[in-house]
């Protein structure tokens, strides 16, 4: 061992030892940990936790956003309970879960099953291309789709071209179709995230499971159903929680696509109401109450999903 250190293969090891010895001396393990956590913690406290607490506090006040806040207890929440627009907005948020969560997960699974088991040339290009919507700015996405959905835009032009002119609709301005139009853009944005998560997850599945499945005569669909899908449980859960939160807090797409919830209030969502109340109607306290309610719903449902999952894992383990 001793002479090995001279040949340049292991100086890193002695370096690591020295480092370890040195750093252990002045601190106990615990204080060391705190030291490392501190910068992140300070940033988190200042920019996340304090504003959240501030929002909770303001939600108990009648506040224009610039006048001195006046404490009114739970009046904002009482009003919220009776607010039809708020109920409609929350309802729309849950409607968008279909498009933000369910469709992207199904689409992601489908694409993953196509891409993971067949060796296609130029796969990296396909994968990158399919992921592009996810990394684009939502405002850019909104502007592009607004143009596509234009009454005389590409979608309607294509419909005319292929002889389906009776299907032409003023998509984003139509009371029936606008929610679906906005939702479908959400699906287009979210499926990329699901796909990448699943592609990564599928690589962690033991190849031998597939080999065994093949030996037992499973076709690709059965391989996917009995091997891939169970192996992707964790990734599906993560995709569900992430996209579900996106669906409940969507703002930018609606703001750009239907100018904040039109036609009428067909596509209005909670974040838009928070924004309108806080900045346009000078009702920052009421807006804060909406934001707190929305955050509570998100936290409660996410927590429930994780709890169910962990319980499931426990029962599987025993």
């Amino acid at each position, binding site marked *: 061992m001793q002479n090995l250190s001279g040949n340049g293969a292991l100086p890193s090891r002695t370096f690591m030892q020295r480092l370890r010895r040195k750093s252990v001396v002045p601190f106990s393990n615990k204080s060391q940990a705190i030291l490392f956590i501190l910068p992140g913690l300070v940033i988190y406290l200042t920019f996340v936790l304090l504003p959240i607490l501030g929002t909770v506090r303001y939600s108990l006040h009648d506040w224009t956003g610039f*006048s001195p806040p006046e404490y009114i207890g739970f009046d904002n929440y009482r009003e919220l309970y009776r607010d039809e627009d708020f109920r409609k907005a929350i309802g729309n948020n849950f409607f968008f879960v279909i498009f933000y969560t369910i469709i992207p997960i199904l689409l992601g699974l489908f694409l993953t099953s196509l891409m993971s088991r067949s060796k296609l040339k130029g796969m990296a290009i396909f994968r990158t291309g399919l992921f592009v919507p996810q990394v684009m700015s939502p405002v850019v996405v909104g502007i592009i789709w607004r143009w596509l959905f234009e*009454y005389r835009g590409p979608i309607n032009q294509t419909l005319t071209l292929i002889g389906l002119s009776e299907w*032409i609709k003023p998509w984003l*301005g139509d009371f029936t179709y606008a929610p679906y139009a906005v939702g479908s853009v959400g699906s287009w944005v979210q499926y990329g995230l699901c796909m990448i998560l699943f592609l990564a997850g599928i690589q962690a599945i033991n190849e031998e499971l597939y080999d065994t499945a093949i030996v037992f005569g499973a076709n690709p669909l059965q391989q996917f159903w009995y091997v891939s899908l169970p192996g992707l449980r964790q990734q599906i859960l993560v995709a569900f929680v992430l996209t579900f939160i996106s669906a409940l807090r969507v703002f930018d797409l609606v703001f750009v696509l239907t100018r904040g919830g*039109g*036609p009428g209030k067909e596509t209005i969502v909670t974040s838009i109401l928070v924004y309108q109340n806080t900045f346009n109607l000078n009702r920052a306290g009421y807006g804060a109450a909406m934001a707190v309610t929305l955050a509570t719903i998100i936290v409660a449902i996410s927590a429930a999903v994780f709890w169910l999952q962990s319980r499931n894992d426990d029962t599987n383990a025993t």
Partner: protein
Amino acid sequence: MKRLRLLLVLIVILLMTTVGFMQSSAQEEVTLVVWDNFTREAEQAMIEELNARFEEAHPGVTIQREIYETSDLTQLAPRALSEANGPDVIMVNQGYTGMGALVEAGLLLPLNAYADQYGWWDRYAEGLHARNSFSEDGQEFGTGNLYGVSNTAEVVGVYYHKDIFEEVGLSVPATWEEFEAALQTLADAGYTPIVFGSLDGWPAIHTWGAIEHAYSSLNEIDDFIYRREGGTFVTEANITAAEKMREWIEAGYFTPGFEGMDYDNATYGDFINKAGAMWITGSWMTGSIIADLGEDADNVGFFLLPSATGEEVPLTIGGVGLPYAIRATSEHPDLAAEYIDLVTSPDAAALLFEQGYLPAVAPESVEENTLAGDVVAAWNLISSNNKVGHYLDWTAPDIAADIQEMMAGQVSPEEFVNNVEEDYKSSE
């Protein structure tokens, strides 16, 4: 060690420059901070020209100008005006949620004394100052102190293509019946009578509001906007106007698919490209139309939507534009007032007019048979006859959504006026 020394040197240099900078700005020079919404490229020269004149007349005064889109300006105003070094002069939005909230929070300076001193009361028709006035507690709109002075004006009327009118044998309609007949004539000739797009929401307020004003009296609208005793949206005129809107939609008088068309590109493009004969919108488009059509712009004219109740001068949506106001805690209120005097002066009006704006102070001479001339004449007619109406969303913030529902037939005209009334009552 070398790196550390370099870092130290850098820090010292940085400190020295910031201290030096702070010292130089501490000298007795006055900076007047002005926030406005003249964002278009072509407008910059106009404002800079005015600012240069002001700085020339006041040695030692520097104007620090910040430009914002109207919506940004409106949202930033309360917070900016609460700052000790916020804007001295700022354009504020009219109405309860704009100027009213700022007055209530004590952020704006009453301008009555300055108005007396500079003669602002005579700049434009007396009734128009009400739009920039609030009671001291910010609760009552259209009365009390003056908090702003405007330099632009707006009127919502009908732009039309003269050659299309000529082709189908039409002249500018003088009565409501003639206007409706013109719609049918144009439709029969295969033209879209009125280009329209309601995707953005607010254009619906203007288009339907124009019809609503044609049926209403100024008292009805004033009572509603200023929340006076008896002010209501449930009026015979409003129900009739909603029925008329539905009738026109069903008759195909508006652009097909208008629900899915936006204002800036689709609707404007349709009008410019003569996909339709008329466009009901505000005088603010004059500059763009002139710029985009060039010499052909004189082929476009502007007239007021006639009164549906037989009034000679029709009640018309319009008003004075975003007014200039002074921050209550400004250290240089006199200077700020002098600046406002300059940018709202007839001199400034002439510059504004050159940019295609409709100045609040009417230009003395305008060329007839030009688009700009038509617009100025229309404004002069309604402002001198006290026929200037209002934007309905000032008091009913959700009205665009309500109008969209009514246009799509989701609600009946009666339900529609009741919905707006509810919105009106709850946003009090």
